[in-house]
């Protein structure tokens, strides 16, 4: 198999390069041989998640004070890129763990952070980000999950449904978003809380092993001390911090999937013969591979730029992350389609990683904000910039 250096190697520190090699070796040994099986069985075995935890990957960006690795965001991106090539479903565990952990790190009380961050960092508990509802996906302002003030004490009562919650089947703690009167609110809800029903979702086209679940809250009692942030700031501040890490993770995971498509395609094109000629000698195939390789290079720049901006803690980081996620998710869909096309019938069989890439890639365009939501936000940002410059 031909290996390509990715993620702008010349922009990485020696430590980041060494960790990327470690991550890729982990994927080669522990993920790639099993990814098709997990996809077929629609479940990632618990011992695999334990392996992620043992390697420190589930708390990669949390500070050492809370038991995390304290790695920079570029390294977090490299981890997601490496895992994304192996299994989009498994990378989803990293995605939601980081969304819950980093939102809590920023907005949690001292008590919440002391209680939840150490087990999240060590992977002793899995977090899930309960934002999407049956009637509210990317338009998060339309949430109907309702918190009401309990008349007996200072607690809240939670009613409503959440849908398509990644890792919901594995989660021990949910960060749940909803409305308290007219204000948005976010609360921590342990999976064992009475009145919370977790129902596994099967039959997905892609992301089949990501442990998606439907959550039903029926008069669930929530302590006021479990509110994260303050009412009124759940969507504008708490969710946005989580979504920022979710988008970085997804952008880099999509880049890894793109690399998988590229490496599979060039390897196949080099050996598969049609009428005594290698597939790679045909101009039509070279065109597909040229587009894939160029997207891989461009996506690597965009992902590095997003991660580096987050490390630098600059306001542009949000826009750069949206741009990276928008680009790599769409490029991954194109690359996966072309990778199947290059392989022909063998690329359509469930034993082929490109067939799984094809199904998983489409999910990348939907999670953490659809392509259309990204276009709406980025389009406004770019038009506003033109307005300011008078062009």
């Amino acid at each position, binding site marked *: 198999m031909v290996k390509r250096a990715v993620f702008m190697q010349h922009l990485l520190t020696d430590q980041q390069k060494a960790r990327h090699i470690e991550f890729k070796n982990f994927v080669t040994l522990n993920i790639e041989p099993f990814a098709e099986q997990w996809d077929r069985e629609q479940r990632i075995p618990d011992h695999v998640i334990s392996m992620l935890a043992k390697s420190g990957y589930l708390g990669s960006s949390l500070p050492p004070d809370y038991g995390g690795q304290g790695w920079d965001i570029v390294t977090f991106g490299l981890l997601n890129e490496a895992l994304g090539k192996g299994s989009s479903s498994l990378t989803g565990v990293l995605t939601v763990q980081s969304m819950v952990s980093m939102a809590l790190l920023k*907005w*949690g*009380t001292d008590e919440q952070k002391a209680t939840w961050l150490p087990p999240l960092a060590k992977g002793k508990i899995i977090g899930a980000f309960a934002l999407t509802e049956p009637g509210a996906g990317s338009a998060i302002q339309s949430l109907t999950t309702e918190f009401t003030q309990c008349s007996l004490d200072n607690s809240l009562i939670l009613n409503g449904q959440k849908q398509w919650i990644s890792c919901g089947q594995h989660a021990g703690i949910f960060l749940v978003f909803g409305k308290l009167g007219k204000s948005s609110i976010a609360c921590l809800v342990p999976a064992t809380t009475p009145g919370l029903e977790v129902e596994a979702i099967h039959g997905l086209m892609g992301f089949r092993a990501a442990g998606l679940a439907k959550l039903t809250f029926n008069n669930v009692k929530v302590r006021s001390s479990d509110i994260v*942030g*303050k009412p*009124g*700031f759940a969507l*504008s*501040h708490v969710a*946005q*911090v989580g979504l*920022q890490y979710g988008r970085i993770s997804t952008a880099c995971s999509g880049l890894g999937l793109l690399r998988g498509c590229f490496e599979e395609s060039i390897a196949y094109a080099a050996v598969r013969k049609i009428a005594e000629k290698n597939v790679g000698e045909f101009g039509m195939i070279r065109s597909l591979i040229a587009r894939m390789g160029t997207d891989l290079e461009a996506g690597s720049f965009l992902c590095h730029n997003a991660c580096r901006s987050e490390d*630098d*803690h*600059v*306001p542009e*980081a*949000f*826009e750069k992350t*949206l741009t990276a996620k928008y680009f790599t998710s769409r490029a991954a869909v194109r690359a996966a389609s072309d990778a199947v096309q290059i392989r022909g019938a063998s690329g359509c069989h469930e034993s082929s990683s490109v067939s799984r890439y094809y199904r998983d890639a489409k999910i990348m365009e939907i999670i953490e904000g659809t392509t259309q939501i990204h276009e709406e*936000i980025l389009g*406004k*940002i770019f*038009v*506003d910039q033109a*307005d*300011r410059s008078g062009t």
Partner: protein
Amino acid sequence: MSTAEENGVKETVKRFILSSIAIADLDDDDNLFESGIVNSLFAVQLMTFIEKTFAIEVEMDDLDIDNFKSLNATTAFVIRKNGRRSG
């Protein structure tokens, strides 16, 4: 904090706001979040900007719209967070 320093904070924040949203000018007490001119990322971008620029951390207890609703409000918040007396 001297008036000159306060004006410096205000001017820095104003430049960021004007570079982020499509308005020609901004009065000191214009409500940024009631006008409908900001996008969904503006609140966290403004927060990140003042954290980075003025070396402060916006914490859970600071989540109050009165701290960020206008140029004057944000300036006063930055000055308070820096532990200095306004004006």
